[in-house]
């Protein structure tokens, strides 16, 4: 039972990271109806920016961990958001009136550009960092000596995710931008006629999605202690699976889907086989799309002729 609880904690932490990435997919799909294939690589860029910022801060003599974390968080969110904006501006905006598959193919190209850019710029080898946040709590210790651990990193990941989600939900539900976004989601032409700057709203959607992906990248770096240029691909597909599982276009659904995928992956690794954990995640994508195409919280798509 203790083993189960330990896996539950690990799964929830992994799930929050997936959930943060999944929000970017689901927002973009909701507003422009395309799968932003490069989003996984935006997450990877976020991880790299966090790593480099961390290294610079440490080398200039900053030692107070909370300040380091805060600066790294802000810098990586800002820079990665700029990446998201640039990608939209270069690769997606000119294609808005193009045929349906064009943005998808362009996004695949952009994904190659981003991952190979960071390979060229930062080298192909895995970049490890020493653990930044150490320590933790033992929640329960069984007679057999197995202890359920809750490490401080895990607490930081979950708390950051919850705080950011609260801010994000407020942004979408209460602000002018959120209203514009929801309006564009329903009908872009109508929104434009009523004075909503559609281009800017779509840009902002990409910017926010990228900022959240940057947070996920930084959490990944803190939790696993490494980044590499290829990590965006698999994480991206899993996060997309999470978005589909939760119902694409639905923001709470993305988070829920992320948690579900994190839990499934962790339990699969713990009880079945580690080698096939990615296979399990990809199979879920296929199964969900066949049996539950609208996801857990999604609305059914009406087929218009």
């Amino acid at each position, binding site marked *: 039972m203790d083993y189960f609880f330990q896996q539950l904690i690990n799964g929830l932490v992994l799930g929050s990271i997936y959930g943060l990435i999944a929000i970017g997919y689901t927002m973009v799909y909701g507003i422009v109806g395309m799968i932003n294939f490069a989003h996984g690589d935006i997450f990877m860029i976020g991880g790299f920016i966090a790593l480099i910022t961390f290294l610079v801060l440490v080398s200039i003599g900053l030692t107070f961990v909370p300040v380091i974390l805060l600066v790294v968080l802000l810098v990586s969110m800002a820079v990665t958001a700029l990446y998201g904006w640039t990608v939209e501006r270069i690769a997606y905006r000119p294609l808005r009136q193009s045929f349906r*598959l064009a*943005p998808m*193919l362009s996004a695949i190209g952009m994904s*190659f550009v981003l991952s190979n*850019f960071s390979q060229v710029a930062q*080298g192909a080898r895995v970049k*490890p960092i020493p653990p930044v946040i150490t320590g933790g709590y033992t929640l329960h210790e069984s007679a057999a000596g197995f202890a359920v651990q809750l490490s401080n990193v895990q607490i930081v990941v979950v708390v950051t995710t919850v705080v950011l989600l609260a801010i994000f939900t407020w942004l979408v539900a209460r602000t002018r931008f959120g209203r514009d976004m929801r309006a564009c989601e329903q009908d872009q032409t109508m929104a434009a006629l009523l004075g909503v700057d559609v281009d800017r709203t779509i840009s902002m959607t990409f910017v926010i999605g990228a900022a959240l992906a940057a947070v996920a990248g930084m959490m990944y770096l803190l939790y696993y202690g490494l980044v590499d240029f290829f990590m965006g691909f698999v994480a991206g597909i899993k996060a997309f699976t999470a978005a589909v599982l939760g119902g694409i276009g639905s923001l709470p659904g993305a988070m829920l889907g992320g948690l579900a995928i994190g839990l499934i992956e962790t339990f699969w690794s713990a009880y079945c086989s580690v080698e096939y954990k990615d296979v399990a995640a*990809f*199979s879920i994508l296929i199964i969900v799309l066949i049996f539950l195409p609208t996801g857990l919280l999604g609305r059914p798509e009406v*087929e218009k002729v």
Partner: protein
Amino acid sequence: MALPVADRSTAKPTSTFGFIFKKAALSALVALALFSLMIGIRTEAGPSGQLIYWTRFGDLAAIVAAVFVGSILIELLRQWLGPAGTRTIVPPRITEGLSVASRFLAPALLVFALLVPVTFYNQRYLLDLGILVLTYVMLGWGLNVVVGLAGLLDLGYVAFYAVGAYSYALLAQYGLPLPLLSTAYPFITVEHLQLGPWAFWVLLPVSGLLAALWGVLLGFPVLRLRGDYLAIVTLAFGEIIRLVILNWQDLTGGPNGISGIPRPTLFGIPLNPGPHGLAGMLGIPFSPTHRLVFLFYLILALALLTNWVAIRLRRLPIGRAWEAMREDEVACRALGINITTTKLSAFATGAMFGGFAGAFFATRQGFISPESFTFQESALVLAIVVLGGMGSQLGVALAALTMIGGFELFRGLEQYRMLVFGGVMVLLMIWRPRGLVGHRAPSVFLHRERTSISSDMVKEGRG
């Protein structure tokens, strides 16, 4: 949207130097923000595992300057060419000329391909390159059935290539399992038939059929999916196949792959230096080039077979159903076409050719491992089909030649290759979303006249 779009260059008198300069400065500023950390600082794991870094501000300055100058140049070009549109890049007259030339181009290319082993007999490198190009031509034509004709975006095509390659490698290694009705037992026993020199010729169709079977297996679950969703599921399917191959070590050797795959024979006659080899039987001195020439003609024949079948299928009811489905699935269903069989047959046909190509790949290399079947390979084949204009047979062949030839030209710049490849894909979608020789005429017309429909005018169906 039918809103009249104002001509931007006349609406805004912005061709002033100040505007261009401001825009370039802004681009340079964005570039500075983007690259200052990623390029300005280089990290690497040091000798003791500790992460170290050094600065590269020179490179950073060079890149920012390049963005500044490039931005000015692009803006000047844009104002010189007028508003961007697909038609300004390749004028309609040239497109027409191309379609006339293409009638002569295809036979010319075929003759050239047939003569390659004769002309370049002494240049092994070129022969090898030719074989590689033809493999991708074949893969492109196979995927074209799925993407170009049936309009189903398949991002996991490499899975069928892998199935074909592994089917051939494993069956050649273990022998073909034949279920035999044994008289001694009331059960069916399985006997492994070793195929010897005929292995390739027996297993080539078997690999194709197995790949087609997997195509149908993939097709069933995705019958109801469209567009983007279909693309992602096929991608997941391709990854699942690769991961299973990678992890099922007992059967596939995992990351070590399978080596010692039997080489092809000329209908039973091996191409080796022994007395029973082809050279020995003909009484000529043995040369390893013989095998290359043989492989070249083999893949040429396989590719032409793919092309011929695809062209013939287009004229059959099933091919027309594919094209109808590509243009509008709902209308197609309303007309009573069975979408299930139409989709499954497209997947199976495309997969079968992928399987043939895979078996050829395995026999050519003599060694296969999961590394050859990554998503990049799928994307490359898809890029060939897209560049070739989705549906045009000649376009795909030219695109394969350009892509693979281009990759070879930049072989020295290995690490920039995929970077450029991705960038080209993005630019292609922006400038020529219909491919460079985009030409997608429906095969059937109501009236006798065959007006060629330029790709610029064809709107995508909801495929």
